[in-house]
């Protein structure tokens, strides 16, 4: 167990005297930076004008740090920093490979866009309640979860991002927010507690919490320890966090209640942390058990994507529709996890990156549209195309992307996943992905036709007086920062769609790193013979 009875052979190896390299500092930098800036912003809470001026450049620096980290990992492989230079597994390790660094960079880009968008979307009250400190602290949690190499530490980062997300969710304390927030909070508490239960069992079995150490020890424990139970618990806990079908009802109950920019952030980041954790535990740590659960994961994936899109089809509120579309996307990502092949996993990674960018951008676009016609309902919507044709086209582009139509980024991961499903003969999984694509097209097509394309309903009382004039409506001025944030994300999804090779290569790299973690293990234990 945790206590070694035989004396250590040579204690001198434990005396690490070589200094920590700059690259290793880079690994911990995103987390430290976010916590530091978050603390500063918390102290400057009352200076609401100062908040975005500090937070937005800080988020840009975070993007830079994550970009440098990804570049470093791509060039020289997985990177490890163990706190206090204790020999792993005794110190807590931060380890990242291209998967973690890629997700961290994408989440930082989405957070930057949200920070810029929030400048005009969050008023003084929201800032005084601490919008920007919460965003920074949530990013600390998200970055920490993507970069850590210790499973208990992963739990801690989950809790950090969760408590910050609670703060963001109830920002403003409206009735709907308190209602949605209560359901979100309780169900997520159960999910993280299940995660903690599984981690407690894991420690009892392995006597270690370091992921690389678990990879090394899993094969010899497999014959005697109930690893399948453990992995099923992880699947349930992270499935709940990722909003997989039957345990996803907290998402549609809460994601439409907070401020729009908060919804966008949540849509982009939170469920993907669950997907990331599923990839890490099920594929990298326990690949053998994942094979045993593959059928269940595949059924869950198909149920998630179909139930999600059918839910989206049934909503009158566009924000609630988008919430269900997030779930549908999670189903597509789970399909790759169920397949477990390098192609399937790379499809999952690509889709996760695509989904982070596009879902956040969609919430931005819908938020801007609501500024024009003042609402989110389909029954009273319309007139966006007349008032602001540019926004209508941008939204159409994003709708194409989320439905998986070319030339945007949704196409490629679906192609990869359908091909990977057909390669192993899982025709029904491929069919589920394609049917989901068609139903998503119907859903977003209807939203666009009703809320954007058709003229504004004449008898609508909620419209502003200026639109009642007989002359053609004046183009509505939208805040520049918000447009810039939306345009940035649109550019990303178009770039991924038109020129997907770099991202495909990166996601394949990440998938291979998950399937063969010897480089990951070597980075934590230099000299250890990988399995």
């Amino acid at each position, binding site marked *: *167990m*945790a*206590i*070694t*009875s*035989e*004396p*250590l052979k040579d*204690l001198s190896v434990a005396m690490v005297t070589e200094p920590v390299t700059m690259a290793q500092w880079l690994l911990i930098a995103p987390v430290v930076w976010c916590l530091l800036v978050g603390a500063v912003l918390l102290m400057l809470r009352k200076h609401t004008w100062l908040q975005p001026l500090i937070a937005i450049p800080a988020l840009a620096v975070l993007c830079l740090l994550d970009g440098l980290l990804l570049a470093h990992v791509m060039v020289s492989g997985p990177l490890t920093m163990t706190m206090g230079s204790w020999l792993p597994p005794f110190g807590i390790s931060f380890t990242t490979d291209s998967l973690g660094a890629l997700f961290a960079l994408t989440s930082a880009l989405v957070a930057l866009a949200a920070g810029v968008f929030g400048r005009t979307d969050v008023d003084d009250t929201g800032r005084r309640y601490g919008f920007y400190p919460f965003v920074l602290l949530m990013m600390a949690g998200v970055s920490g979860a993507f970069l850590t190499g210790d499973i*208990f530490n992963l739990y*801690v980062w989950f*809790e950090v991002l969760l*408590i910050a997300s*609670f703060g963001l969710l*109830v920002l403003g*304390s409206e*009735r*709907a*927010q*308190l*209602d*949605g*927030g*209560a*359901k979100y*909070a*309780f169900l997520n*508490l*159960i999910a993280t*507690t299940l995660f*903690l*239960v599984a*981690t*407690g*069992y894991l*420690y*009892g079995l392995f006597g270690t919490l370091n992921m690389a150490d678990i990879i090394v020890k899993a094969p010899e424990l497999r014959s005697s320890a109930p690893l399948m139970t453990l992995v099923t618990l992880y699947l349930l806990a992270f499935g709940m966090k990722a909003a997989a079908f039957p345990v996803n009802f907290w998402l*549609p*109950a*809460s994601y*439409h*209640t907070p401020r729009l920019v908060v919804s966008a952030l949540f849509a982009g980041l939170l469920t993907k942390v669950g997907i990331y954790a599923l990839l890490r535990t099920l594929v990298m740590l326990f690949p053998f058990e994942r094979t045993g659960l593959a059928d269940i994961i595949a059924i869950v994936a198909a149920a998630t994507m179909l139930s999600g899109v059918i839910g989206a*089809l*049934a*909503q*009158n*509120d566009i924000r609630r529709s988008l919430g269900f579309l997030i779930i549908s996307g999670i189903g597509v990502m789970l399909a790759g996890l169920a397949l477990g092949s390098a192609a399937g996993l790379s499809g999952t990674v690509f889709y996760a990156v695509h989904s982070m960018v596009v879902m956040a951008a969609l919430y931005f676009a819908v938020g801007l549209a609501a500024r024009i016609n003042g609402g989110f*309902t*389909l*029954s009273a919507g319309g007139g966006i195309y007349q008032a602001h044709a540019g926004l209508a086209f941008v939204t159409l582009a994003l709708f194409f992307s989320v439905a998986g139509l070319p030339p945007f980024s949704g196409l490629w991961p679906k192609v990869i996943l359908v091909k990977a499903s057909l390669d192993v003969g899982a025709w029904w999984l491929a069919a589920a992905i394609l049917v989901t694509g068609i139903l998503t097209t119907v859903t977003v097509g*209807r939203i666009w*036709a*009703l809320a954007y394309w*058709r003229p504004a309903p004449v008898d609508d009382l909620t419209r502003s007086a200026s639109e009642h004039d007989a002359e053609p409506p004046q183009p509505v001025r939208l805040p520049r920062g918000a447009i810039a944030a939306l345009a940035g994300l649109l550019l990303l999804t178009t770039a991924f769609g038109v020129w997907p090779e770099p991202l495909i290569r990166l996601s394949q790299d990440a998938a291979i790193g998950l399937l063969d973690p010897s480089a990951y293990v070597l980075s934590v234990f230099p000299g250890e013979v990988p399995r």
Partner: protein
Amino acid sequence: MEALFALLVGALFTVSIYLFLSKHIIRILMGAAILGNAVNLLIFTAGRVTREVPPIIPPEFDVPQSVVANPLPQALILTAIVISFSFFAFLLVLGYRAYQDLETDDSDEMRVAEPVDDVPPPLGY
């Protein structure tokens, strides 16, 4: 000793799941408090219960000479206690604010975010 603790953990989980199945926020809150303690005890038991042997290493040795109490699960539990306590404090306030604003603590009647009489989307253009 571990078997006894395992039974106790099981009992605590049973109680908390029973409370979680209730419609009332206040009972769910109690369930959350008990759940946190159940998990802490679970981690403690998973780290093996060793009594009255402090993890002190004699000066002439490098490792403990007998089976000693394992300090790591205690560190884990300490972290988990802090987190579950802060969560519980937040949830208490959230539950109370929801009760104030929604005027109910029955989760069946908390339908502001997802109204029962929600209109379906228009069927025609």
